[in-house]
């Protein structure tokens, strides 16, 4: 229960779709989604596999709570070896696709092999079929999704890749419901390498739970907490994640101009409040409304509409729509990181990411790195083909983002990500990456715990593996000082384990601004067979984290990869409350390894593995 107990295995080489029972022992040990899919992945895939080889598998996964009445139960994940990183990848998305797939009766879809020609998969309850996608190849996410809904039914849901995933952009996203994305680590690139264009899903089977009355009680209690909590009941619905732009800037932790600075003069022009303000040009606000994913009472999504006369979209009607607007990470990467403070340009570039299927964090950070390479003369108009890449320029940003989506000119080099780009042009230190993935919108010089978070994240630098900002900035669940390292090792470990469990459940990490594990475990316990105590949930989270680590170590990563860009470790913050600080990773990492039960060089000990049943 909770689980449908069915997996769809799609062999793209053979063109077959077969149903098989879920391994319930693994479900009991790894719960679902991120945890269970990764268990299947590591059992079936060689850690040394080339991410773009047919032997790299890709798994679409739901959790036991996905598609149920649990609040925020629209979450689903894509697990594979990341094209950008070569590390374990698990990208999490919202919207409605995951719930639709679960309601069709599938816990997971395992894609293996590679199709000889472009195909797409349709699922209508227990019927699964591969179709020729020759006429869809080359189309954008928006075009592909519209066509598949027209072809197979408007009540269905679609997850697809755009041109970026087809052309090998290393940070291509899998986009569902037009503008929700499994965005990080290049999971869309892996999908494209398999010649798989899209998945259409329609489900009317429903999801059963173990104890319906108990489930309604537990989920009802959680909904009440979310509604009554000031952050999830009011703050996030009204201002979304974008309200953080001014907060983080004021704290002196907003990386700007490729992290040369920690504050950005244009922050107020691109933050959540600016999205509410009426434009001088047409008297309308950028923000049209908020919106919710499946089963979500928080509704933090932004829906935006651009000024139709803005230089990026003038006479281009397809961009005059209301669509997924800027979230904080995208606004930071496309804006503060590049120095661009024009909200409309950032909205356009975000639309481009959704349309062509790209991760805006890696795109924005890579453009910022390119702008610094251009500034210092490591690349010139000769390399860029005459394209200017000047910090602070909306025109340059819009041009290169669109070229990257289309795979044109120097955009093909931006599509490599900043690590490969900066190495190619002899300045590897200008790439703001860990394990090949660009770090997001929190500068570890001003928020120390985020340095450890980025350095130890199993999928490369990421804020969503242990969001210590909640504690270090917002005081949730309790306030810690962002400038000190003491206690951060334990904080990061606790956040990592709890986040892994929430991801595995099929619900949204944003619930944890209001809910504790004591509120989440009863929902799992009422949905799933067995006894799901708080303690068991935390142990599952820890098991998932260690499983991912073991896979990465087998893939060739070592403790030496648990580091940060030298800029964060050597160049002190120039302004703000953190002025004079660097990130003191060396003060946190040994304690973190010790708390994890890992050796001094970052390898889980046999005792730890034994304790966790790994």
């Amino acid at each position, binding site marked *: 229960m909770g689980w449908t107990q069915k997996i769809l295995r799609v062999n793209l080489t053979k063109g077959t779709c077969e149903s098989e029972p879920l391994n319930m022992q693994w479900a009991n040990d790894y719960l679902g989604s991120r945890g269970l899919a990764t268990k299947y992945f590591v059992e079936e895939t060689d850690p040394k596999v080339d991410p773009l080889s047919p032997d790299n598998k890709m798994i679409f996964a739901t959790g036991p709570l996905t598609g149920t009445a649990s609040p925020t139960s629209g979450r689903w994940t894509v697990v594979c070896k990341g094209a950008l990183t070569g590390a374990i990848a698990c990208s999490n998305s919202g919207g409605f696709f995951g719930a639709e797939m679960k309601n069709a009766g599938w816990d997971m879809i395992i894609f293996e092999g590679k199709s000889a020609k472009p195909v797409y998969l349709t699922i209508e309850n227990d019927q699964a079929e591969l179709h020729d996608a020759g006429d869809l190849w080359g189309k954008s996410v928006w075009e592909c999704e519209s066509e598949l809904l027209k072809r197979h039914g408007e009540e269905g849901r679609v997850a697809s890749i755009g041109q970026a995933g087809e052309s090998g952009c290393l940070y291509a996203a899998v986009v569902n419901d037009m503008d929700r994305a499994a965005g990080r680590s290049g999971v869309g690139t892996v999908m494209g390498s398999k010649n798989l264009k899209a998945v259409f899903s329609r489900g009317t089977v429903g999801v059963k739970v173990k104890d319906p009355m108990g489930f309604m009680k537990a989920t009802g209690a959680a909904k009440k907490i979310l509604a009554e*909590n*000031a*952050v*999830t009941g*009011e*703050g*996030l619905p*009204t*201002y*979304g*994640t*974008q*309200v*953080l732009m*001014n*907060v983080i800037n*004021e*704290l*002196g932790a907003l990386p700007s101009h490729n992290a040369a600075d920690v504050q950005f003069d244009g922050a*107020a022009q691109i933050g*959540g*409040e*600016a999205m509410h*303000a009426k434009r001088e040009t047409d008297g309308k606000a950028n923000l049209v409304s908020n919106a919710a994913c499946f089963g979500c009472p928080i509704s933090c999504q932004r829906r935006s509409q651009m000024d139709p006369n803005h230089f990026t979209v003038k006479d281009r009607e397809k961009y005059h729509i209301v669509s997924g607007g800027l979230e*904080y*990470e995208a606004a930071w990467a496309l804006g503060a990181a590049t120095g661009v403070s024009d909200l409309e340009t950032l909205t356009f570039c975000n639309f481009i990411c959704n349309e062509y299927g790209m991760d805006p964090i890696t795109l924005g950070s890579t453009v910022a790195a390119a702008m610094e390479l251009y500034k210092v003369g490591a690349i010139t108009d000769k390399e860029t083909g005459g394209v200017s890449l000047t910090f602070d320029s909306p025109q340059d940003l819009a041009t290169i983002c669109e070229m990257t989506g289309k795979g044109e000119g120097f955009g093909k080099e931006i599509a490599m990500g900043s690590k490969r780009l900066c190495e190619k042009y002899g300045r590897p230190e200008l790439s703001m990456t860990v394990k090949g993935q660009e770090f997001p919108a929190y500068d570890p010089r001003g928020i120390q715990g985020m340095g450890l978070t980025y350095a130890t994240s199993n999928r490369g630098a990421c*804020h*969503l593996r242990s*969001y210590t*900002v*909640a504690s270090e*900035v*917002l*005081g*949730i669940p309790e*306030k810690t*000082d*962002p400038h000190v390292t003491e206690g951060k090792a334990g904080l990061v470990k606790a956040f990592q384990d709890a986040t892994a469990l929430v991801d595995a459940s099929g619900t949204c*990490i*944003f619930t944890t*601004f209001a809910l504790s594990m004591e509120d989440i475990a009863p929902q799992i316990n009422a949905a799933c067979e067995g006894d799901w105590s708080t303690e068991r949930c935390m142990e599952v989270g820890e098991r998932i984290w260690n499983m991912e680590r073991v896979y990465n170590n087998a893939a060739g990563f070592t403790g030496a990869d648990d580091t940060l860009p030298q800029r964060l470790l050597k160049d002190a913050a120039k302004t*703000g*409350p953190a002025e004079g600080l660097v990130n003191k990773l060396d003060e946190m990492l040994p304690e973190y390894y010790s708390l994890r039960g890992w050796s001094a060089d970052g390898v889980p000990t046999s005792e730890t593995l034994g304790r966790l049943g790994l």
Partner: protein
Amino acid sequence: MNIKLKLYASLMRYLPDDVADRHTAVLNVPEGMTPAKLIEDRKLPKESCFLVLLNGVYLTPAERETRQIQEGDAVAIWPPIAGG
């Protein structure tokens, strides 16, 4: 003495008309002013003052009562918010 009061999100409506920018008002306040007294004087709803920073540094509820604002300081206040 002159200080800066920065208000964000739903608290922006409590800014005076003559603001320095979208979020900031320059105010003349007496010596010894505390953030808590400032919140009271500006008639800000105390329960909505979720995050209070003095020159970018977080103040606990207790510190808001006792910390004295100095000439040129910036007090920034947000209602309950979060992100990710």
